[in-house]
C-alpha cells in the first residue's frame, strides 16, 4: 500500500473539522469529569441501593459518551466506506497486537466490566487476596480502597484470567462472618441460640436478612461461625467488632470457656 493509497483513506482535514473534533473531545471530557465529580458527591448523600445505583452510573455514562464521541469523530477523519474501515482497523489491530496488547486488553475489559458488572462502584471485592471497596472504575483499571485506607489499582485485564470475589454484588447485602472458638465441653444448642440473639440485638444488623450460626467440631474444641448482614456494607468491620465484643461477653456469662489452641492448631482450618 503506497502513501497515496493510505492518504486516500482519510478525509481532508480542514480547520473546521479540527475545531469540531476539539469541541466533541472537550464536551465529552467535560461530561465524563462532571459525572465523576457530581455522582460520587450525590451518592454520599444516599444510602443502600440508591447510593450504589448513583455510583454505578459513572462508568456507564463514560462508555456511552465514549461511543457517541467515537461515532461522531471517526466519519470526520475517515471516508466511511467498508474498504477504508477494514484497512484502518486492520492496521490499528496489528499495531495494538504487538505494542499495546495489555493496555488495550485492559481498556476492552473495562468496557466488558461495565456490561457484565463483575464489580460496580460501592461493591466490596477481592482480587488476588486484596479486599476493598470499589471507589472508581477507570478506563484501564479499577480503584479499590482497602480497610486500611490503601488505594489499590487493579487493571481490568485481571477480569480475563483471575477470580473476582464480589461480597455484595451490587446490592446493599454483605454477609459478615464472625468466628468463636470454644472449649468442647458446653451445650451447643444453647450457644447457637445465644449467638443468634447476639446478632439480633446488634444495632448494626439488617433485620430483613437471615442470621445463621454454624458449628464444627475441631480437635481443639468447637468452632462457631456467626453469619449475619449489616444494614450498610460500609459498617461491616464495626458490625464484626460489635458481634465479637458482645458475643464474648455473653459467652463468658453463660458460662462457656474459650478454646485454648495449641501452637499446631493456630493455623486457620479451611472454610466451609
Amino acid at each position, binding site marked *: 500500500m503506497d502513501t497515496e493509497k493510505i492518504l486516500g483513506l482519510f478525509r481532508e482535514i480542514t480547520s473546521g473539522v479540527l475545531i469540531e473534533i476539539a469541541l466533541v473531545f472537550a464536551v465529552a471530557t467535560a461530561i465524563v469529569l462532571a459525572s465523576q465529580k457530581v455522582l460520587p458527591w450525590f451518592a454520599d448523600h*444516599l*444510602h443502600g441501593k*440508591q447510593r450504589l445505583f448513583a455510583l454505578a452510573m459513572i462508568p456507564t455514562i463514560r462508555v456511552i459518551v465514549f461511543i457517541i464521541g467515537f461515532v461522531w469523530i471517526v466519519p470526520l477523519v475517515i471516508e466511511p466506506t467498508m474498504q477504508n474501515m477494514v484497512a484502518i482497523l486492520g492496521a490499528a489491530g496489528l499495531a495494538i497486537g504487538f505494542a499495546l496488547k495489555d493496555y488495550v486488553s485492559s481498556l476492552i475489559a473495562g468496557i466488558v466490566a461495565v456490561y457484565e458488572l463483575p464489580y460496580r462502584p460501592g461493591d466490596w471485592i477481592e482480587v488476588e487476596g486484596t479486599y476493598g471497596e470499589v471507589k472508581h472504575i477507570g478506563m484501564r483499571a479499577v480503584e479499590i480502597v482497602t480497610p486500611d485506607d490503601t488505594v489499590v489499582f487493579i487493571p481490568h485485564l485481571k477480569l480475563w484470567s483471575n477470580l473476582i470475589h464480589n461480597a455484595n454484588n451490587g446490592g446493599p447485602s454483605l454477609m459478615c462472618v464472625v468466628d468463636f472458638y470454644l472449649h468442647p465441653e458446653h451445650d451447643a444448642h444453647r450457644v447457637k441460640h445465644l449467638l443468634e440473639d447476639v446478632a439480633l*440485638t446488634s*444495632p448494626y444488623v439488617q433485620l430483613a436478612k437471615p442470621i445463621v450460626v454454624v458449628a464444627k467440631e475441631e480437635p481443639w474444641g468447637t468452632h462457631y461461625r456467626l453469619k449475619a448482614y449489616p444494614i450498610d456494607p460500609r459498617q461491616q468491620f464495626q458490625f464484626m467488632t*460489635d458481634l465479637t*465484643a*458482645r458475643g464474648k461477653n*455473653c459467652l463468658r456469662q453463660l458460662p462457656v470457656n474459650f478454646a485454648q489452641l495449641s501452637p499446631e492448631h493456630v493455623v486457620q482450618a479451611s472454610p466451609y
Partner: protein
Amino acid sequence: MTKSNHWQLIPMEQFERPSAPASTVIQQTWSHLRKLLGADSDDDAVPDEQDFPSYSEFALEPAVAAVNAVFNEEDAPSVRFVISPPFSGCGAIMRKWAEQQGYTQLTPPSIEQLEQADTDPWWQQQQCDTWLLDEFSSFWLRTTAHMQFIRALLPRLLRGEIGCGVVVIDSWTYAFLQRAWPLSLPHCYCFAAASPELLRQSGIVASDKRLRKVTARARGNLGVALAHWAVEQNPERSLPRLPGEADDATAFILYSLLLHHGLRGEYLQQVLPMLAPAQLDVQLLRLQQNAVVELDDEKIWRVTVYAYIEVREFLAARGFWLDGF
C-alpha cells in the same frame, strides 16, 4: 358508637395508609431533592424547642367507644394485641378503656426478673384475671437476656396461661418482634388511619383537600397530624430537621428510642455499648438542640412528635427495619 364517631378499631391487616394527593407527592419529592442537594437553608434547623406549639389533646371517649364496639367480652380470646404507632394515643385510649372495664394495669417486670428470663415470679405478683399490659415496648431492652424473657412471655400469653388481657405494643416494637419471634401474633388490632372526618371530630376546621394533605403527610397518625397542624398554624415556625451532622450513630440512637418508646440515658448506653458515653451525650444534646428528641420529666429521651416523620424518613433512607405504619 354513634354515626358521628369516626374512630375505628380494626384488625391490623385491614390498615390502609391514606394516599397523598399528587401535589403533596410532588412537593415531598422536591423537598427531598433539595435536602439531598443541600439547597435547604440550615438557618431554621436549630429551632428553639420551647417555642413549639403544644398539639391539641383529643378526646378519648369516642376512641374508647370504638374499642368497646369491637372488643366483645363474650367470645374474647385470651389475649389481644393493640398495635400503637408512636404518638397515636393508643396507650392512653386503652388505659381509659381498661379503667372502664375494670381491667388491672400490670406492673412491668423488674430488671432482675427480666435478666433471669423467668416469667413466674413476675406473674405471681400481679394477682388479677383480666389485665392491660400497656408498657410492653418500654420495659425491656434489646439485649440477649431480655430477649429470652420476651420469648418466654409471648408463648405463655398466647396459651392463655396468665389470664385474659390486652397488650399494647408500639408499632416499632411489633415490627422488631416479627423478626425476633417469627410467629405471627393473633388478634392484632389497630386504629384506622386518621381521616379528614376524624380530624374535624378532633376539633380542626379546614377544607377536605387540606386535611387530606395533613393526614397523608402524617401517615394517618392522628397525634402527628395534630402536631403538624399546630405548626402549620404558626407561620413563624417550621417542623424540626435533623442536624447536618446526622450519621450512623444518630440513626442507631433514633431507632433505639422508637423501638423502646423512649429510653433513659443509661439504658440507651446499654443497648448501644459501642458508642462512648461522651459520644452518646454529644449526639443526644445535638438532637435536643434541633428539637428532634426531648428529655421528659422522668429523664427519658424520646423522639419529638414534630420530628417523627423526618426521623422515620431518615431511617428508611438508611435501610432500617421500619414499622408497618
